[in-house]
């Protein structure tokens, strides 16, 4: 285990050391102490390593992650795991706005609640939130999966493309062009896998969820739908 004190060694040294880990490395386990809400912790990683941050993080923790598993043993500020490509990011506490924004792959797990715009513009990432999510979540979400064990705020899935949204609790309102859809066998199968990988299989079962997706009415502009935009 490599222990890195962010307060004394600094952000640049941290990311630079983590970026230097290419391909097969023996330095696979890292612990970052004293994060104290710093921004851009463990961003741009591209190696199969495990990084645990002991405390809460500021903006963009694990941004653009590839391959690595990053666990925040605390809460995460805005944009955690933004544009993640692959790997896993787990937040033990809550996450602020834009969690998993534009993520293209991998798995983001938030054990607490996520604020507004969770999964905004997501492009292939899977996100599992154990608690609730705020308003405008999955706005313009293109592909991937958003699983919410709690409730969703206003305007869920506004202007949605092909992403799939599963919510166990209530949905305050659906956004433009987002509708409830039938749960088919492949969706139960998908949920079972995501709940398991999202460390949530003991808390919820696939059959407790409802599925939401795009009505695809706004895919090509039609003046008669103008009031929906």
């Amino acid at each position, binding site marked *: 285990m490599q222990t890195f004190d962010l307060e004394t060694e600094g*952000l*640049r040294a941290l*990311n*630079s050391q983590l*970026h230097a880990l290419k391909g097969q490395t023996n330095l696979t386990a890292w612990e970052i102490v004293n994060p104290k809400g710093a*921004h*851009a912790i463990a*961003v*741009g990683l*591209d190696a199969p390593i495990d990084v645990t941050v002991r405390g809460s993080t*500021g*903006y*963009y923790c694990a*941004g*653009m992650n*590839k391959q690595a598993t990053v666990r925040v043993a605390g809460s995460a500020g*805005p*944009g955690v795991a*933004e*544009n993640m*490509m692959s790997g896993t990011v787990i937040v033990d506490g809550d996450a602020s*706005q*834009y969690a998993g*924004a*534009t993520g*293209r792959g991998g798995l983001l797990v938030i054990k607490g609640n996520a604020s507004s*715009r969770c999964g*905004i*513009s997501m*492009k*292939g990432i899977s996100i599992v939130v154990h608690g609730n999510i705020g308003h405008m979540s999955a*706005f*313009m979400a*293109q*592909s991937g999966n958003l699983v919410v064990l709690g409730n969703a705020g206003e305007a869920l899935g506004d*202007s949605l*493309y*092909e992403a799939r949204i599963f919510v166990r609790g209530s949905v305050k309102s659906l956004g433009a062009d987002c509708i409830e859809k039938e749960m088919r066998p492949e969706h139960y199968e998908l949920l079972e896998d995501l709940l398991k990988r999202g460390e949530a299989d003991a808390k919820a079962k696939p059959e407790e969820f409802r599925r939401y997706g795009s009505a695809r009415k706004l*895919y*090509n*502009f039609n*003046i*008669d739908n103008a009031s929906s935009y």
Partner: protein
Amino acid sequence: MTDLPRTPPRYSATFTPAVNAEIRRAAASGIYDIRGGGTKRHLPHFDDLLFLGASMSRYPLEGYREKCATDVWLGTRHAKKPIHLDIPVTIAGMSFGALSGPAKEALGRGATEAGTSTTTGDGGMTEEERGHSKTLVYQYLPSRYGMNPDDLRRADAIEVVVGQGAKPGGGGMLLGQKIWDRVAEMRNLPKGIDQRSACRHPDWTGPDDLEIKILELREITDWEKPIYVKVGGARPYYDTALSVKAGADVVVLDGMQGGTAATQDVFIEHVGMPILACIPQAVKALQDLGMHRKVQLIVSGGIRSGADVAKAMALGADAVAIGTAALIALGDNDPRWEEDYQKLGTTADAYDDWHEGRDPAGITTQDPELSARFDPILGGRRLKNYLKVMTLEAQTIARACGKNHLHNLEPEDLVALTIEAAAMAGVPLAGTNWIPGRTGGF
């Protein structure tokens, strides 16, 4: 009675035939007009400025003997690897999707041969473009189509796009007819649907957030890449100052003459300011912060010739960017395709339905048959020639003003032909020492 003269038909200056035609079009279609390009209205522009040249009090440089340098460094504020260009005319961001793959290749070829940079666009980085561009600027846009850390690292600079001159405050729309397989795959969306590009970034709002976003991009790329911030010409003093505050190495300022692949005509024609009005405000912001020449300023929007380049630089820009002019150099709107333009209900030099994907010149299209009309090697050569001519023209003017580097051109070298241009550019009306809004005169 019949011999009395009749009142001849008189067109309204308000309800012109063009205005009436647009009313009829809107009434018939129920949708606003979407088109490509920049504003087509007459605006105060570089044509309204003149250089004074050398005289008794200024010595000119000998055209064929004395050097007039043209190079520029970009990104010297923070980046470990700033960019050095031979000429200060860069190629503006235009997306693969809006343009064909071969057109992007040609831009890379021409820019590289001329010693300058090209820029990606709202569709990610293509192999054609990266492979043929020695210096490539990678745009970071609200849509984040195709965004990934590997391309960030193989870019030579990163341009965070806040806005563009054709539509400050607007997002984008690539219509379904241009979404062929490869474009759809790169953008992670179904084929054939309209692709809306958001007007705001998904994970930051405002200059305080942008400062943190720029920190993240620098950390991901180990502080190697210059980071540009591109803004549309709206509030250039404050936008420039806030970009500097957010940590930009370079500010890119795009006036309303700057083109777009597809936007509402009403947006293009009625939002934003001409580049002439933007440059002095941006330069003033940099000067007030003590950052002029430390944070470089690239300006764009209606740059057509070496005279425009020299005028922009005399007003304080470090470099310029061209988009529409580069497409014309490649062959866009060329009269050789007139027959095809007529079939589309338009004519060469007026074609602007770039969003429809039926470009006879094969540049703003994804249609394989039309794309095949365009030769990227020949197009690249034409662009190189054009860039070289612009540079020679700018040097000719600079030497006449006694300057041994384009960066030594200054507002004092300029006068304005109109009161409007004098006020906007902050240079005297020709034949007076009057700068409207600043100094008295005669």
